[in-house]
């Protein structure tokens, strides 16, 4: 039986994972289970025949109310490797009560017997809202809701960390940049804490750090030297260009000089520290090209791993967590 303190809508009445909406509220056992099965999927992409029939006859809808290419594509590939029928919807919606509401759209698609929704939306809480208004047999995966969570991204990040570093309890991790607007950071912080990371630090100017971030179980540093000291993993976040209008950050130059990851600033971290970024990267704004493409960077591994991890999450939700079903 899983721990069901937060976000219980993710679980069915037997405590089994039904939706994948937030990392918050999940147990270490669930996270580890997903990572283990993802591991068994890793070599799958290299096979001649890249399909298993776990979702054969099932319909998965990629419902993206926000534009995305990479995340949507990896979900599509993951579902197809599990033999699902995939429909991509780049939907638009009104922000007010005028026009079709987000629930109207979802219920229309559900009436066409969709089995699984992968949802991305600009508003925090959308995935939760959708999941709690669908019949019990329909699954929902959150592919990013506003600034809230992006749980599959966090899972592929911790998967990538585990590939290189194994034991979380010995790891210090720094997350650098725009924490305030980042759903990725929030999910990463939850995942790393649940997996028992030794220390998590966030680094950035105060305008990009949310109030009371310490309550999420992280420390804060206002500069790279202190923040990266003894760090095993450096996670850089994307800075949206629209944050650069002088309201939150004075200028790109000042930001890059203080918080950009370069060969020089990377020296503050441990010599074997790995560099991560959820993408897409802004070269020269938050990370220099030489670091992004350098030997310490695992940015492309993250993308590759994204498929296996998302396959594993889908398999979990479809009740296929028993490995014997496909090996």
């Amino acid at each position, binding site marked *: 039986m899983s721990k069901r303190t937060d976000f219980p809508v993710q679980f069915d009445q037997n405590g089994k994972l039904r939706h994948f909406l937030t990392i918050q509220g999940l147990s270490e056992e669930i996270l580890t289970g997903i990572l283990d099965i993802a591991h068994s999927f890793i070599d799958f992409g290299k096979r001649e025949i890249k399909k298993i029939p776990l979702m054969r006859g099932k319909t998965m809808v990629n419902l993206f109310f926000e534009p995305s290419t990479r995340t949507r594509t990896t979900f599509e590939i993951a579902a197809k490797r599990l033999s699902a029928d995939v429909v991509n919807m780049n939907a638009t919606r009104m922000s007010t*009560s005028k026009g079709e509401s987000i629930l109207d759209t979802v219920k229309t698609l559900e009436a066409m017997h969709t089995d699984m929704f992968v949802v991305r939306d600009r508003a*925090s*809480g959308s995935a*939760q*809202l959708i999941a709690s208004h669908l019949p019990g047999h329909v699954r929902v995966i959150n592919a990013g809701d506003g*600034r809230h969570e992006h749980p599959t991204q966090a899972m592929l990040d911790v998967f990538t960390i585990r590939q290189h570093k194994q034991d979380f309890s010995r790891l210090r991790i720094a997350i650098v940049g725009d924490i305030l607007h980042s759903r990725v950071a929030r999910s990463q912080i939850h995942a790393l804490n649940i997996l028992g990371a030794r220390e998590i630090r966030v680094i950035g100017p105060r305008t990009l750090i949310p*109030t*009371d971030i310490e309550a*999420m179980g992280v420390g804060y540093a206002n500069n790279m030297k202190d923040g990266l000291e003894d760090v095993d993993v450096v996670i850089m976040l994307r800075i949206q260009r629209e944050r650069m209008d002088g309201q939150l950050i004075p200028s790109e130059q000042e930001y890059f000089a203080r918080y950009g990851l370069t060969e020089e600033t990377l020296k503050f971290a441990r010599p074997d520290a790995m560099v991560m970024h959820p993408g897409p990267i802004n070269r020269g704004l938050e990370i220099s090209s030489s670091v992004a493409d350098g030997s310490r960077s695992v940015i492309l591994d993250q993308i590759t791993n994204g498929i296996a991890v998302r396959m594993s999450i889908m398999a979990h939700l479809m009740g296929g967590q028993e490995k014997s079903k496909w090996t």
Partner: protein
Amino acid sequence: MDISIQDGHMIDPANGINQVIDIHVSQNRIRAIGEPHQEFKPERVINAKGCYIFPGIVDLCARLREPGEEHKATILSETRAAASAGITSLVCPPDTLPIIETPGMVHMIQDRANAAGFCDIYPLGALTVGLEGEKLTDMATLLDAGCVGVSNALKPVENSLLMRRAMQYASTYDIPVFLASWDSWLQGNGVVHEGTISTQLGLPAIPEAAETVGIARDIALVETSGASAHINLLSCERSVFRLGEARQRQLPISASVAVHNLLCTESDIGEFNTLFKVIPPLRTKQDQQGLIEGTERGDISVICSDHQPHSLDSKLAPFSEAATGIAGLDTLLTLAWSLVNNRQLKAETVIAALTVNPARIVGLGSY
């Protein structure tokens, strides 16, 4: 009909009564409290043993949705709900559709309230034309038409010079000014208190400073304009302190709190529960405690419902897009009384904050 109500526990703060006592009513008016006139012969005797008897509740902030949003509620539906919950007078903000800025609108609302017949409605007139914060309305005319005050509803006047002139003008005619004291820039597009919950849920946040900055400005303007002001709906402890200081300086300023801010905190939002989406937002436990203590001290003198009825589907949306507000007429008294049961507020305090204090702010003579 002549009626005697016997053995009820009467709390009437205006007259300093808090005891079990008989009440004698004739022709719909209380004729005597305690012993009746010798010739008084009641046709009906009501045994009120074990019951409380209060004056009618005056709710200083209730939206009725009529005119303009009758699919959500009507004057008939809301006054009926109010009356059944012990509320006899409702003060409604001017942000109806159209806005209350002409005598015709004031008359129409009062006519409809009279036709409904359940309780009295006292409209607030708009402080600025279209609530846009640019031009003063014909406030004196609105007062003559029956408005009990002026207000810019939920749209604070950003221009401090215009706000000062509005107060000066209102003070010329002794018109009470009702304020939503918050700084629009700091408020931004926020939907929850800035703190642990906004950080965890990734929701746009309203810092405490949005309110403390707004209140500091408005207190300074009251001090230099001579207006008498009522600050609607405090939400944080520091605002209560600011108001306490202003009251110590004898400024003509009062404040209210919505009953849900006395009972709930940001944590109640839980997993994006849009039913707890209110403005001003639910804040921390410490703020909640500060509001309760401020009410007991009298720095906050009014508890209101901030009644905002909605259709169900307007709450079925992502949190930041869902409608703001709680429907609260039916529960105002019971929720406020729960603070008495929990020994957080005295019974006299709660009853004064629901009856005589708001009545005095809008000049209802019968309290």
